């Protein structure tokens, strides 16, 4: 017994190591974010934040990602419900295919979107009806939709997984139809999870830029949403713009995540 106690005491290194690694990681990430602002300084922050160019890009980012998010939600909520509740053969295979746009690098997605929009149905529409998706805002929306749609379905699946099926069973046993159950019982119960997921999806759409590189490109004032403008201005050597826009992106991400936590969603979906 005494030997056990000694060995228990000598194992103190484990919690110390765990906490030390956690704090080290926090310090690394905090320094990563803080070094930006230390580099920029206060007066430059004020200067760049008061420029109209900054806010024009900010609003462009905001409304494109909001629109793309609403499209994703229209597809993602029912698809997430189907993935959460129904069982069907080769489920893992279908789920993996649906996950592909999240798993594969978004730059690759952009290349594939370029291939699709220059091929049969889109090309026909473009030639005959002037319906063009490519180097304009429609291309930005398509990229954001493609990347966030699967993401949204996955988050919604997690949100519906948190709702016990018991409520649905009770509602059905009391005579409500399936659709009535879904709209009156499932959706209100999962409301918080859905809103939280919506915020994350929106933040993810606002963070999308790799897909734009090969597919859309950036036109100043038209398709240069903020993450892409960071890359462009960095190539142009405009360090002040780049760092101040990075700060805006970081604030956006932190705000979205904090809002999601306050609403009570979970960022990780296990």
């Amino acid at each position, binding site marked *: 017994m005494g030997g*056990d106690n000694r060995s*228990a005491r000598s194992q*103190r290194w*484990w*919690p110390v190591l*765990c*906490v030390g*690694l*956690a704090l080290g*990681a*926090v310090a690394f*990430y905090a320094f*990563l*974010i803080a*070094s*930006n602002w230390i*580099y920029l300084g206060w007066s430059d922050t004020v200067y760049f934040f008061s420029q109209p160019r900054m806010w024009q890009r900010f609003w462009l980012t905001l409304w494109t990602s909001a629109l793309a998010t609403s499209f994703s939600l229209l*597809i993602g909520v*029912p698809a997430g419900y*189907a993935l959460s*509740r129904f069982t069907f053969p080769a489920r*893992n295979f*279908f789920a*993996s*295919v*649906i996950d*592909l746009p999240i*798993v594969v*690098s*978004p*730059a*690759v997605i952009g*290349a*594939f979107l370029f*291939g*699709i929009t220059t091929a049969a149905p889109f090309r026909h529409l473009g030639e005959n009806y002037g319906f063009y998706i490519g180097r304009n805002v429609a291309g930005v929306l398509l990229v954001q939709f*493609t990347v966030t749609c699967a993401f949204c379905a*996955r988050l919604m699946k*997690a949100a519906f997984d948190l709702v016990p*099926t018991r409520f649905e069973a009770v509602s059905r046993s009391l005579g409500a*139809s*399936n*659709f009535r159950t879904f709209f009156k019982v499932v959706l209100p119960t999962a409301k918080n999870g859905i809103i939280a997921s919506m915020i*994350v999806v929106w933040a993810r759409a606002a*963070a999308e830029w*790799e897909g734009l*590189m*090969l597919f859309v490109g950036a036109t100043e004032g038209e398709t240069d949403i903020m993450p892409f403008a*960071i*890359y462009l201005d*960095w190539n142009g050597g405009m360090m002040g713009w780049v*760092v101040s826009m*990075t700060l805006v992106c*970081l604030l956006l*991400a932190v705000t979205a*995540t904090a809002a999601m*936590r306050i609403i009570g969603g979970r*960022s*990780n979906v*296990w």
Partner: protein
Amino acid sequence: MCGERRSGADPAVSAGPSRRSDHRAFRLFFYGFAGFLFLYTVSLFLGNLDQLLVTAGPEHAPEMLAWGSGRAVMTEFAGGFWKDPYFWKSLNLTVLLTAITTLVAALAGIPAAYALSRYRIPGRGVIEVLFSSIIVVPASSVGLCLIVMFNYGPLWELQQALGFRVAHSIFPGMVIASFVLSFALGLSAWKATFDSINPRFEQVARSLGSGPWRAFRTVTLPLARSGLAAGIILAWTRAMAEFGAVLLFCGTFAELPLSRFGTIERALCIDRADWLSVAVWAQIEYGNVEYGFALAFVMVIIGGVSAYVMHRIGARGYVW
């Protein structure tokens, strides 16, 4: 863990014929949306198979190619990528560095996740917001944060004093660039795994006289094994999919002279190679479209296999 409730019993079994048709319409409605998503993804990927067959372009405009203009393999199927040392070196580089990244992330992240899940650390909410917000920070911002962090301020002076550079290097640079996001993602997965395990088992082990390390190793670790493995695959997949941070922080290496690379890099056959997703971008950008698409399909296959493995292990959901 959430989601042990999947509707096992069919609710429409005991219902009448009208209920059954309602049930069918209900399922069809939801399957429709999931099917749309499936078909969209499938058409996105399979609709581009014809890009591999493009062979005419480079013959007519060889001067447009930024590198490899003398290559005879250009006019073959998929650019003849399997004959090109650049492809194999890039694959080598990416697999090797993502393995290193994942190893470091797992060694540092699993204990850190354990600490965040079990111990009372002040400001835990803030820390969680910090790590989960990294997932929705644009990759270009991450790359730029890394540049500012390492190329300005005290860390730059330190690099000057020690005589090496982190940015635009293979060994510390690319590993760090892919580490940032894959660590944050893996950490959230591992933390959720530890959260889902009842701490009571461990407390019982502690009360029976085992130390903290022994309680972790013999009780919590076996319970968390599949979740931790899924988190490791997740971190690896995310590191493979990394593009923006690597592009901004390290750039491309294909055109650099051989003297730029050290003996270790040459011995490992990772000199003059690019990160795989950066290689896709660079090849397409410089006009090697079918070659770039071939590399993209290689990445799709790698990503699809790891997603399938994650689903098989039982990772119910994951996000980045």
